[in-house]
Structures are given as C-alpha cells and as structure tokens.
C-alpha cells in the first residue's frame, strides 16, 4: 500500500465518527423528514403518502400558522438588530482604557452562561405584573405598571427585552474584533486630521463589518428557532401573541402526533432560513469589508 492510499484509509478512519454521525444523525434524518412532510404520520401507524396536503393545509387553512410566522418574524426582526447594537455598544465601552474593565466584562458576560431555564424562571418573576421588581422600579419612578406577559400587546415585546440580557456572547466576539483592528490605521487617520467620530465611522465600523455579519447570521438562525421562552413562560399566549413557530411545531408533533405536518413545518423553516442566509450573504458584498480586498 503506498503512502497516499494509506493516508486516505487512515484519514477516513480518523474522521469516521463524524462521517457516520452526519449520515445517521443529520443527513439521514433530514431526507427522512423531507419524505415525512408528504405523509400523514400519526407515529403509531405507518406514514401514508398524501402529497402536498400538509403544505396546502399549512399555507391556506391553518390560521395559527401565519400567526406563528408573524410572531417569529417580529421577534427575530427586533431582537436580532437590538442585540447586535447592544452588544456592539458594550464592546466599544469595554475597549476603552479605564481601570476595572475585567469586572465589567465578567458582569456583562455572566448572563450568557446562566442556564436558560433558570433565567426564564427569574425573568418571569422579575416581569411579574403584580409583584415583580421591574414594576416596583417603574412605580417608584412614577410610571404606571407594565403588563409584560399578562397582556397580548406587551408579551412579545417583553420577550425581546428579556433577550437583551444575554448579549454578552456577541459582545465578546465584537471585543475581539475591536482588538484586532491595527493601530496603524488610526494613526494614519489622525495624521490626515480625522477626528474621533470620523475615525469611528471610517475605520472602526468598516473593519468590524465581518464580525457584525457573523453575529447577524448566527443571531437570525437562533432567533428563528426560539422555543423555550414561549413554552415555559406563556404557552404561546395570551391570545397567541407569543405563539412562536417552533412552539406550534412542537405542539403538532408531540401533543397531536402529527409527525407529517410537523416535518412540513420544519422544512418550510429550513427553506426560509436558507433564503434569509443567502440574502444576507448576497448583501454582504455591499456592506461587508474584507481586508484582503485592498491588498
């Protein structure tokens, strides 16, 4: 056996866990789920082919479906940009030369590691309309009590607010990006007589666009799959105002054992996420700046 052959055999042996894993736990299930989406499948009986019916029902006669899409889109469309800006601002603050930065960095990052279930229990209580801390502060400052999860008008907005508590992970990535901007760029800018604001707009922002891009893509994918908030805190209510897409999918699959319908929903989600990702990637040519381009 020559060395090339041997390397090929050994290479595949070494990566065989993930190759098998991808086939058994990712690619195989993906294809199965695509097939299931065209069937009626109540779990205890064999799947029965029904063509496009799941998709037709989903798009035309199930009002909840569009509500779930709307809730998820609004949530992603607000929590992702707000999170991006919040994380960016905190990173800029941490990038200043002042004492005690380590303490602030740890404080901002800490919520990101708290188990989601614990932080939901905590926020459910902080945002309790009658006995919560936030309303106590609001009342003390002379504002009326806020309804939070008790009213359909405020429930989803409350979830967006809650999500901002966990911006620490994105912040750390921005901070690394800020540290990676070569000092020489700022010096050159200063020599040309640029002021702080001009340096920020013409150097910091363009140099950070690849990091913003990364956080945007990962943030959108995560937001499209929001589930726990609604499942634990509101069960989708009040009046379906927090009826997230994945909550509906979960109910179809595990409360009603409509495995076919749930698979169709999963594939539609994949399709939308894919289209969004491609759009963001396409648009990146317009606004993401890669250093290699100027060399």
């Amino acid at each position, binding site marked *: 056996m020559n060395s090339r052959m041997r390397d090929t055999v050994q290479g595949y042996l070494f990566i065989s*866990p*993930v190759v098998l894993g991808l086939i058994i736990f990712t690619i195989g299930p993906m294809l199965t789920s695509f097939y299931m989406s065209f069937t009626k499948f109540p779990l205890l009986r064999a799947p029965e082919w029904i063509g496009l019916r799941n998709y037709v029902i989903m798009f035309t006669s199930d009002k909840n479906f569009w509500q779930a899409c709307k809730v998820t889109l609004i949530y992603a469309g607000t929590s992702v940009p707000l999170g991006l800006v919040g994380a960016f601002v905190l990173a800029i603050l941490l990038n200043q030369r002042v004492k005690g930065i380590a303490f602030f960095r740890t404080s901002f990052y800490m919520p990101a*590691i708290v188990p989601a279930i*614990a932080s939901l229990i905590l926020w459910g209580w902080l945002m309790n309309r009658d006995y919560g801390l936030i309303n106590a502060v609001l009342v003390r400052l002379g504002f009326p009590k806020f309804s939070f999860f008790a009213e359909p008008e405020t429930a989803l907005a409350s979830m967006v607010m809650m999500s901002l508590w966990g911006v620490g992970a994105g912040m750390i990535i921005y901070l690394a990006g800020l540290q990676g901007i070569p000092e020489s760029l700022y010096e050159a800018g200063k020599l040309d007589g640029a002021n702080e604001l001009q340096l920020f707009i013409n150097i910091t922002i363009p140099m950070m666009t690849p990091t913003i891009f990364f956080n945007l893509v990962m943030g959108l994918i995560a937001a499209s799959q929001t589930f726990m908030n609604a499942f634990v805190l509101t069960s989708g209510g009040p009046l379906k105002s927090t009826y997230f897409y*994945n909550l509906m999918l979960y109910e179809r699959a*595990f409360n009603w054992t409509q495995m076919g319908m749930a698979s169709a929903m999963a594939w539609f989600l994949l399709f939308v996420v894919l289209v969004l990702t491609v759009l963001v990637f396409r648009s990146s040519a317009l606004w993401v700046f890669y250093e290699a381009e100027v060399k």
Partner: protein
Amino acid sequence: MVSDQEVYSGIFDLNWRRRPKQSSRILFIYLILIVSAVVFLLPLLWMATTSLKTQAEIYVFPPTFFPETFRWQNFPEGWTYESMQWTRWLVNTLTITASVMVGTLISATLCGYGFARISFPGRDVWFIMVLASIMLPGTVTLIPLFVGFHRVGWLDTFLPLTVPAFFGGGAFNIFLMRQFFKGIPIELEEAALIDGANRLRILWQIFIPLSRPVLATTSVFTFQAVWNDYFGPLIFLTSQENYTLALGITFFKGLYNTQVPYMMAMSFLMVIPVVIVFFFAQKLMIRGVILSGIQA
C-alpha cells in the same frame, strides 16, 4: 492579520489602545459601565435574595430587596419538597453530562486530528459539511430522530442524549480541535512517522499532552451545554425519575407555581456550578467564543 494570541492578550492584559484623555469623558464611560453592570447583575442578585425570602415576603408590593431574615432552610425544604426528586435528577444530569463529555473528547479529538493532519481526497468536502451543520436548524432532524429512537426503544432513556456525542462530538468542538492541532509543529510528527509510530500513538503521545488548553475548553463548553440543555431532555425523557435538573425546575413550576422562594432556590442551585466553572475557566471560554467568531 492580527493573531488570535494578540487579540486574546489584548482583552486580558489591559493593553488598551484607545485612550480617552479628558477626565469628564472617563467619568461618562464609568457612568454607563456601572449602570450597565447593575442591569446585568441585579437580576442574579434578585434571584439570590428571593430564594431567601418567606412566602409572605414574596407577595408584597412594592417588594423589599433583602428579606427580613435570610431563610436558608428554603434550600433543604425545596430540595425535599413533596414529590420532587432533586437528588435523583442531579445524578441523572451528572450521568448524562459525564457521558457526553467522554464521547465528545474522544471523537472530536480523533476527527480534529484527521481534518488537521492527514490529507486525503474528500477531506475538505466533509469538513465543509461539518461546518454547515452548525447552521442547520435542529428542528429539521428532530422528528425523524424522535421516530427512530422510538423504533429502537431508546425513548425515555439517556441514550438519545449521549450516544450522538460519540459520533463527532459536535461540529464546533471538531473545529476547535482542528484549529489547535494545525498549530502544532509538523516536525514533531514527521520524526515519529519516520520512526514507524502509527498515527493513533502519535495522537496520544505527542498531540494530547500538548493540547490541554483546547481539551479543557471543549470540556467546559460541553459541560455548560449539557448541564443547561432543556430541549433534548424535554423531547426524549418522559418519566419523572429520568428527568434532569432543567426538566425538574419546569416540573416544579408546573405544580407549585406559587412557591416562588423554593423555585428560585432550586434555580439558583442550578446556576452555581455553571458560575463556578465559568470563574475557573473564564479565559478558556472567552478564547473559544473568540475563535468561533474570528474564523467563521
């Protein structure tokens, strides 16, 4: 291009380059930093103080921040409350966490080495597929996996939560391992190969001893992910005695929604190990988060 090491040292060694000159500006920065720190930390402190209050103190408006007396017995009382099986759920969580960590460390090391150090046709295609799987919404594979585990009789056992870890150990961990192994000098390996050592031995005797930082990072991330996981146990575990801590907390909430101090006490207990690990492994974790952002 600035190396990862430089970035890393920049974050930790206060090697700051933007220097605000005027003291009014420093004051302003501190003001925002302190207000933000309060916003981020106050909720956790509130969790701690609420867990020490009496039931009567909970339902008072406006609430007092600190309880009249610290009611420490909320912790043992919550732990043994009625039908709760916290000890059992802790053991379950630890069992699952340990199994997943073992599986992840073994298989991510093997795969990371294969991707980093052996060149063979098809390698890059598979690596791209591994990376692409990070972006795949988990729901797409959820239903068939549930059906499959149902068929083989694995539902309501720990197997659906632990076995997949032995098959690659997660795309992100493979990626971390590969990046690290790529940085180990090739000469070390070539000499051993010429001496006729096989690759498994090289991995074990040369790479593993040099890879403590990345192994530690992977362990810490895996611990956090499994300890915090809610969705997996929710889908695959059904009987109460198989619950994990995360499921136990929702179960408690479902039954005794009004027992807020106990609920906070149990949530707080679940937060403590994560925070302790975080304090010991802060640099490793932040480094891992940074790597994911810089490279991808």
